[in-house]
């Protein structure tokens, strides 16, 4: 048996444009379960029958879809009859995929057993199916040229063709996909069948016309020797008496019941199968067995699309094999068959043909000029929109100024025309958010999401999406540059710069042109606010980051705002479990979902951060792209990492690893000059201004504080690395850590701080932390070259009593005089300021030195009755980072001292 097609799975792949034609569109299903499969698609257009859309959107609050006409286009097809064609077209620069069939954009249409689809693919290796794509292009262009779809939708469809140059090649072979813009299907089928006798004609469709006229015409035209009509009992919409008439007139006709494998499946597929001498012909797609579908062409009938295939006699047997066909003829009168008329197509008294939102201006095109005495009122989600100002009313055109921030997310609008106590209300439409849609055409999948980079106000399953968008926007590393240059970094093989990007050849790049590329040029334009053009994506991100730190109190929400909040409520949250079993079940389901999202997010985060860090570590890349790109990328990555780890989307261990690399690059370390320091003065000032404007300094310290708080959880290596970075950052002049910077960083993380956690203390503890090995090493170093130190325990006389103590024994140096002892004490006091008893033994010289805080004595002596010297005024050594730490984070003792 032939495998069934899994339609959602066919939407995957590296294809950037999608056009879906459907009769009805279940957009909730699309957003939740279809769109996520189309991971590479950034320009998606859904074209649906206008009346079906109006009905679906008829509820005042519209549909539960958040991205309509923001992240993809949904447009009505306004032909005189039903727009009934069903297709899914996916295209990219070198390949395309096309599905033509019977299923609408709904769970039943794409994910039940009751539909038929045919898949066509074109690739550089195989263009044999190109004719099918040509037919679809012709069909879509027909919709545009006949004015059935608006200009915004048309623009997005045309973009798909513009970015798919292969479509312009000539096609060979038969046209396997047909439309009825010019010729009725019955004519096309008859033409394909030709003059030869038809031995058998098998037809199946869920809808017939009332008089079964299309079936009669079909039979008259093809004159089959045998006719088999398949009907689904209690389902097929057909008038029994009309069907009986056709059958009676034919003479050798049979009606059989048909069911799908899975009980209860509605067979929505439509097919006509003609068995001829030595071959078969099959028409399968959107047309039902109705006159408007089969016997007429546009504009006298529906818009339909179908596969018309010819093959050997058994080519289509799998269609019938998958069905359970009754063995005997059905008693038409007893099979629950009934003609269900379609609802009449009544045009509303007024409707909105086009609504476009640009900035805070909403432009509306009405179907007819409103009456002179009518006042147009803007409704949003069924309620009058507060403070919408009608700027202009010119013929069918209306222009409103409104607070566009309140229209965040997709919400339906309608126009109420008020005249005295009477009013007329248009059906709902979803306005096109023009700026977002334009960004889609520039390659963005979810343009709105970029605005949320600043506060990561995202749902779990949006993180991956955000990272994909950022990946598109940022020129993160050398691979991104290659892509901008239109070259595939993988094409050269590993030795020429394969997937790692390590060996890419710079000589091949045309830098003059590249610098003018929007993706590179945006780094320059992102820093100016003079542009009258739409903000670039980078500007969107940077502005949102800057605003994150300048948040003012938000105004109190209006009525519509509250309604919109309601609309955003997540319905996936279920009810509280009432029993242990329910709780366990819920736990498992939540865990499965969480793990799946978490894993995807974690992987995406690591990929993204790795690419950015890779770019920032690549000197050749940095030389070419310059400080604007490098510092901007660092600002964004720094901001993201700090937030991601705080929100729990990235584990601390990974985040710290990335942050250490990033800070090392940007600020530098004790032994490595940071990028900022490497710039000349003028460049450095410019970049530092960017850093301050976007508070990358605050976010660095905030990230440091957060990492310090959780540093107990880190591996030893990460913890040491973090500590060393902390010490370095404390003294980096470009960062210039001050109390006020520290306060700002604490304020940034404060809302997420757990109770009883003091980030300043954590930072100090981390910076001062030393291991025993490090402490002994430092003491040995203070003792002089070649010295080593280890710990020992002994019983000594202390304050007149014997006492067990721990002391440091020095080896490997011959000298341990008073000066050396003083140096070692100074180091030790700095490293362990809170110790009470310090003792150093030098077995080689039989010398000993003691600093006893409790007894307030400090001396050096030679054992065996030798010299004893008082080592007065030993003060702790210091380090630059300690000095900064003591300034910005004075200990209580220091505070008391300074007081």
């Amino acid at each position: 048996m032939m495998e069934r097609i899994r339609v959602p799975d066919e939407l995957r792949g590296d294809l950037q444009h999608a056009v879906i034609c459907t009769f009805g569109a279940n957009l909730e299903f699309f957003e939740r379960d279809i769109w996520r499969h189309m991971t590479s698609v950034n320009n998606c257009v859904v074209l649906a029958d206008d009346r079906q859309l109006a009905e679906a959107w008829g509820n005042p609050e519209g549909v539960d879809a958040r991205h309509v006409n923001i992240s993809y286009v949904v447009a009505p097809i306004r032909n005189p009859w039903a727009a009934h064609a069903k297709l899914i077209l996916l295209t990219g620069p070198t390949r395309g995929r096309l599905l033509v069939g019977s299923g609408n954009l709904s769970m039943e249409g794409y994910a039940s057993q009751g539909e038929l689809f045919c898949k066509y693919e074109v690739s550089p290796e195989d263009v044999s199916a190109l004719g099918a794509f040509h037919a679809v292009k012709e069909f879509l262009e027909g919709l545009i040229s006949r004015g059935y779809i608006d200009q915004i939708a048309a623009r997005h469809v045309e973009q798909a063709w513009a970015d798919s140059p292969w479509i312009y090649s000539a096609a060979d072979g038969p046209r396997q996909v047909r439309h009825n813009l010019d010729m009725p299907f019955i004519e096309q089928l008859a033409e394909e069948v030709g003059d030869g006798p038809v031995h058998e004609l098998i037809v199946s469709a869920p809808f017939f016309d009332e008089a079964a006229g299309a079936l009669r015409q079909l039979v008259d035209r093809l004159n089959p020797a045998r006719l088999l009509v398949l009907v689904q009992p209690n389902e097929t919409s057909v008038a029994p008496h009309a069907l009986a008439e056709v059958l009676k007139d034919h003479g050798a006709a049979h009606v059989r019941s048909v069911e799908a494998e899975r009980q209860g499946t509605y067979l929505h597929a439509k097919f006509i199968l003609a068995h001829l001498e030595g071959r078969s012909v099959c028409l399968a797609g959107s047309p039902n067995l109705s006159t408007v579908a089969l016997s007429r062409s546009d504009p006298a009938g529906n818009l339909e699309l179908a596969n018309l295939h010819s093959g050997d006699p058994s080519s289509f047997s799998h269609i019938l094999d998958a069905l359970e066909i009754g063995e005997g003829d059905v008693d038409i009168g007893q099979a629950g068959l009934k003609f269900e008329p379609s609802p009449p197509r009544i045009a509303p008294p007024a409707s909105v043909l086009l609504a476009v939102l640009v900035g805070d201006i909403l432009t509306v095109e009405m179907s007819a000029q409103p009456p002179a005495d009518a006042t147009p009122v803007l409704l949003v989600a069924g309620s009058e929109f507060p403070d919408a100002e009608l700027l202009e009313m010119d013929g069918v055109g209306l222009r409103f100024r409104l607070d566009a921030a309140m229209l965040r997310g997709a919400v339906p609008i309608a126009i109420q025309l008020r005249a005295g106590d009477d009013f007329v209300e248009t059906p709902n439409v979803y306005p096109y958010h023009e700026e977002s849609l334009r960004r889609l055409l520039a390659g963005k999948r979810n343009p709105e999401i970029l605005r949320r980079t600043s506060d990561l106000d995202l749902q779990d399953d949006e993180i991956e999406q955000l990272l994909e968008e950022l990946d598109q926007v940022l020129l993160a590393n050398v691979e991104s540059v290659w892509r901008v240059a239109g070259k595939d970094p993988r094409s050269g093989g590993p030795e020429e710069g394969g997937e790692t990007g390590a060996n890419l050849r710079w000589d091949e790049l045309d830098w003059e042109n590249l610098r003018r590329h929007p993706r590179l040029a945006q780094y320059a334009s992102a820093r100016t606010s003079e542009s009258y053009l739409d903000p670039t994506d980078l500007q969107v991100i940077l502005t949102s980051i800057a605003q994150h730190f300048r948040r003012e109190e938000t105004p109190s929400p209006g009525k519509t705002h509250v309604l919109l909040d309601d609309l955003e409520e997540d319905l996936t949250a279920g009810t509280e479990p009432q029993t242990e079993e329910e709780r366990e079940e819920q736990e498992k389901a939540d865990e499965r979902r969480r793990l799946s999202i978490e894993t995807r997010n974690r992987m995406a985060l690591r990929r993204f951060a790795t690419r950015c860090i890779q770019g920032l570590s690549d000197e050749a890349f940095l030389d070419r792209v310059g400080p604007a790109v490098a510092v901007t990328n660092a600002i964004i990555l720094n901001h993201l990492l700090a937030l991601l780890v705080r929100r729990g989307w990235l584990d601390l261990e990974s985040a710290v690893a990335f942050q250490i690399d990033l800070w090392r690059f940007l600020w530098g370390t004790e032994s490595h000059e940071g990028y900022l320091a490497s710039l000349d003065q003028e460049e450095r000032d410019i970049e530092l201004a960017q850093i301050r404007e976007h508070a990358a300094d605050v976010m660095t310290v905030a990230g440091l504080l957060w990492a310090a708080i959780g540093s107990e959880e880190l591996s030893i290596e990460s913890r040491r690395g973090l500590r060393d970075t902390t010490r370095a950052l404390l003294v980096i002049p470009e960062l210039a850590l001050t109390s006020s910077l520290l306060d700002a960083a604490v304020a940034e993380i404060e809302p997420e701080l757990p109770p009883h956690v003091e980030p300043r203390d954590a930072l100090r503890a981390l910076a001062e932390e030393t291991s025993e090995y490090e402490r002994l090493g430092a003491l040995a170093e203070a003792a002089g070259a070649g010295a080593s130190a280890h710990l020992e325990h002994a019983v000594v006389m202390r304050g007149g009593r014997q006492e067990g103590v721990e002391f440091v024994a020095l080896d490997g140096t011959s000298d341990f005089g008073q000066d050396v002892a003083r140096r070692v004490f100074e180091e030790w006091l700095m490293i362990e300021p809170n110790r009470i008893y310090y003792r150093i033994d030098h077995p080689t010289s039989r010398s000993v030195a003691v600093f006893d805080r409790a007894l307030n004595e400090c001396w050096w002596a030679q054992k065996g009755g030798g010299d004893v010297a008082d080592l007065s005024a030993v003060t702790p050594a210091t380090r630059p980072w300690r000095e900064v730490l003591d300034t910005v984070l004075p200990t209580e003792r220091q505070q008391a001292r300074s007081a």
Partner: protein
Amino acid sequence: VNTVQWTEALYRPSGGQDHLGLGSVSSDRILPLLAPGINVLTPHPRYWSFYTFLLDEFWSRDLPRTRKALSDFYLPRECIFSIGAQLCDRPEHSSSGAYGQVIGSQKTAPLVAHDLAEYDPHFAYIGNDLGGYGYYYAAAIASMGLISPAIPAAGLPVDAPTPEGKIVAQAFRDAISDTTYYREYFNDDTRLVPVEVVRDYIRLACLCQLRIDQAPDRSLLHDVYLHGGDLDAAEARRETLRMMVDLAVQTDGHPLTEDRFRRLVYFRADGEGAVFQPSPATVATARRWRLLQAREYFSYAALRLWRHVCLWGSGETDGGRFGVPMGVLWSHVDACLDSSSLADVLHVDTPRFTGDTRISELLQWLDHLATDDLDDPWQIDGVINEHALYRVGTAAPERDAVVPAMLFILLLLSARLGSPALAARFEKDWDLVRFGGVRRLGLDRFLRHVRRRSMAGATLRDMARWIMQDYVLRQHDRVGASKLRDGDTFRFRQVGDRLRFMRFDAPAGMNDSRFNALGWSVVDLGLVESIFGESHGLTPVGRALLEAGDLDERGVTGAR
């Protein structure tokens, strides 16, 4: 080869619950405001002591601070506690009715029925690595400030008792420290525990033993329940406990059940003799509980109509073998709008109506039941009321009268709560009525829409279509679609102009009222002697709470 293929069915049919997505409005939005920390599955205050004690013991040992180590430590000890609770022979264990909701009892009760001589602490009594604590109690205990949940990023790898928690933990330890179990077995979970050792331990440790005056942790838990955690939450909890005590006193002589509790908080009488007239001190809290119950009747009406559609559709389509034209459903709904069918099952005076009756007329007829005050008693005896209509929904077999009965619940709610003046007057409490918004069917939104439709002359038929379309069909579709990733939980779907049904159970009921959880809380805390039986004797401490509104117990929160 390009060939036409059949499509594949991709979504696994799945049971699911809350098919209209309404349950969480009560459980996640309203109840956390009324009884924060007291959930359906957290009825026993002594678990606050026991779990905090276990955490404290864990932290007092030199063990790795990992969830695995905590689990290894925790499970055997809760297992013995669960087994013990089945063995408890203290009089308090049965004096207030069967002791329910002991964690793990589904597994430990059958085990104990075998009369074993020894018990294995590693018996698999629950499916969660942190047992009842992980499943139910952790969040509630944390919300009252006794534990801090793990925050690895902040250096807290596993949950730990707060300083306040340690006080409670120590009190529990004091209660059981002399038991053989604690002295000889608690530290070593590899040993089987003799039944007498378990029994001896549970006689002091059991959930029911919080009630006795000598329980060292009782006054501490009074403090925790009345003052712990967020101040607003503590106040709400305090007021609800006070109301429960008030309710217990006033209904002395009447055994209370969840069903009676609902009637008492909504109508202020149960129609069987018990009356609840909140005192001036508890009336504000009682008002909010009444609004919660209004929401429950509202949700039930929608859910019950959904169930009716499921049952009707399944019957019409031979268990979902084929679709039904929407017109057939509408014909059925119209046919149900018959006053005689409702009168037959209600046995009280009902208005005469057909599908053509205007809802404004029906609202006018019902107006005599409405008052302009949310604190008045509402008549339950001898008149059409929400609870009587609710019972039409709970009766079997399925009747067509369910449709008008549920519509009348909605109309009654509109008559009682639909006045804008009432909403304005009780604005402070109206948040509870607004919850749900669009996607979870807010009651306030419904009231506004009814008013609008009533003014526009809508008939009962119009209302039935509207409710069925927006509150049942569309809402079910919305919720089913939102859950598709976890499976196909649809019971029916509108495909084109047809409804297609799936053969699955379609349960409809109200959410848990919290009566059991609150009832056990006031009993276990020693505020009332019982609430489930007839006698609801008030303890001195319960009386003090009722009269003063608080208890001067600050053993935990005062130590901050």
